[in-house]
């Protein structure tokens, strides 16, 4: 099985996020970037499948120069090679444009499986995996908490509202994983050293055959009209339990008509 893992560099979850004043995109320069947490589980799952059944794991990232940090991390965890789609023309791409660009880049990499995180912590849309499956005409196996690879087929347990569905499909397939699926490994010192020598291909729009007017702010089908920092929440009332904490809370609930 040859596997491509899509990883995204996102602003550190704990950092205070900012939006650029000029074009209302996420300001990726002013805060530290990290690998999207959920993509670590995607990398781990790809490595486990490779360790069990062979093949190669390629990391694919679309993002500014800085995203190389995230690529390095995936390589030091054990991925074999990486493709970095980087071009000024991509800045401001929405989900429609991102899925188009990723699909084009995937066209340059031989693969049986594409594995993604279920959601990016910045965009939080949870749509790129389904959109990629649609674009590639590949089976969609998303929200997986368990993946079993067979001979030319893949079976997953898909988390649902009420439990899980067992879903099976032939390869090629697009998989997204939830955080219940595994425990991502930490890069070892050896892994970090080895990562420096692993092949990294950089693709521009032209290299991937991406039409410039279908990506970036101009090619996106959604426009952010207005952004407002939410007014700071009024500090709530906090009481220390002196044996009457439950009663006080009940009084508050009653004052708000919940009781």
């Amino acid at each position: 099985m040859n596997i491509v893992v899509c990883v995204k560099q996102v602003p550190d979850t704990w950092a205070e996020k900012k939006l650029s004043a000029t074009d209302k995109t996420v300001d990726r320069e002013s805060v530290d970037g990290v690998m999207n947490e959920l993509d670590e589980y995607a990398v781990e799952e790809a490595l486990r499948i490779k360790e069990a059944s062979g093949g190669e794991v390629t990391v694919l990232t679309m993002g500014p120069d800085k995203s190389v940090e995230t690529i390095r991390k995936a390589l030091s965890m054990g991925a074999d090679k990486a493709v970095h789609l980087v071009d000024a023309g991509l800045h401001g791409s929405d989900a429609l444009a991102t899925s188009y660009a990723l699909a084009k880049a995937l066209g340059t990499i031989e693969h049986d499986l594409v594995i993604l995180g279920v959601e990016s912590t910045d965009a939080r849309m949870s749509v790129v995996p389904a959109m990629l499956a649609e674009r590639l005409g590949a089976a969609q196996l998303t929200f997986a908490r368990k993946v079993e690879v067979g001979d030319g087929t893949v079976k997953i347990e898909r988390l649902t509202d009420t439990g899980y569905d067992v879903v099976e499909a032939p390869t090629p397939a697009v998989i997204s994983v939830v955080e219940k699926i595994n425990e991502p490994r930490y890069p070892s010192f050896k892994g970090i050293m080895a990562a420096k020598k692993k092949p990294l291909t950089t693709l521009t729009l032209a290299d991937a055959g991406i039409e410039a007017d279908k990506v970036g702010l101009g090619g996106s089908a959604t426009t952010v009209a207005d952004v407002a920092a939410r007014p700071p929440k009024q500090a709530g009332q906090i009481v220390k339990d002196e044996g009457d904490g439950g009663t006080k809370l009940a009084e508050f609930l009653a004052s708000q008509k919940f009781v």
Partner: protein
Amino acid sequence: MAEVLVLVEHVDGAPKKVTLELLTLARSLGEPSAVFIGNGADNAKAKLAEYGAAKVYVAGDGDLDSYLVAPKAEVLAQIVGAVSPVAVLIPSTPEGKEVAGRLAVKLDSGVITDAVGVDDGFVARQSIFGGAFNVSSSVNRGTPIITVRPNSTAPEPAPAAGAEEQVSVTLSDAAKKAKVLDRITEKKGGRPELTEAAIVVSGGRGLGEGSNFALIEKLADSLGAAVGASRAATDAGWYPHTNQVGQTGKTVSPQLYMAIGISGAIQHRAGMQTSKTIVAVNKDPEAPIFELVDFGVVGDLFNVVPQLTEEIEKRHSS
């Protein structure tokens, strides 16, 4: 009048509350048409008409129930092609968002997810970065596809014709690749559904062990609330993962959210921060959850919660 499609989310035909919310919202934007996919449409039609569906498109033939997201997007694309609606509204659930994403690709239309409101001109309001920013955005190409969070609109009846129109679908091979072999239900019954409930009571690691979730359930039942849990609690096996609230669990936006023995990690906040009123019980005064609360009690939950439940029951019976 301009037609607005609303994808019906249902359980064996019974429309979920979010569907009625979306029909109500659609009425402020145009004339709602419900799109019902799967089996059980006969159970749904009256309710959909009651909440304002002028038309009900029904795609029930074939083995649609054996597949997941892809066929739903195909059915919607087919209807959009035939009737050119001014927008498509879809419940912002994990599956709803995926359907929206695939539909957007098919139509080359913009998609906006997790809207908490939709105004004139299909301007969608969202709350991002855990509520730190309010954003309004719109679709500039194709048919606006907007997924709307449960609890964003109060459902109000407004009877309409609900004229049924059968839609016959021929699924592409691509849509039939991922096949459902089995559906497993793990959920505990009896309480309101987490994403739809007006009140959610959640428990975390502070409960110490699974059996102590009985305290949370008792409090929830005294308020007619749904039960949620932090990831620490679901990972420990204290409560089913279907009840996890947070980034990788469910996003809830109830009138009242109660966090009991939960520290308020950023991934937990991501799933509850837009709740209208937030209260917490935690013995650590420094717990980050207190930054969000309207009312907080610093204390031992094993003392506070039983007293609270008793007090609520007393007030209800007097």
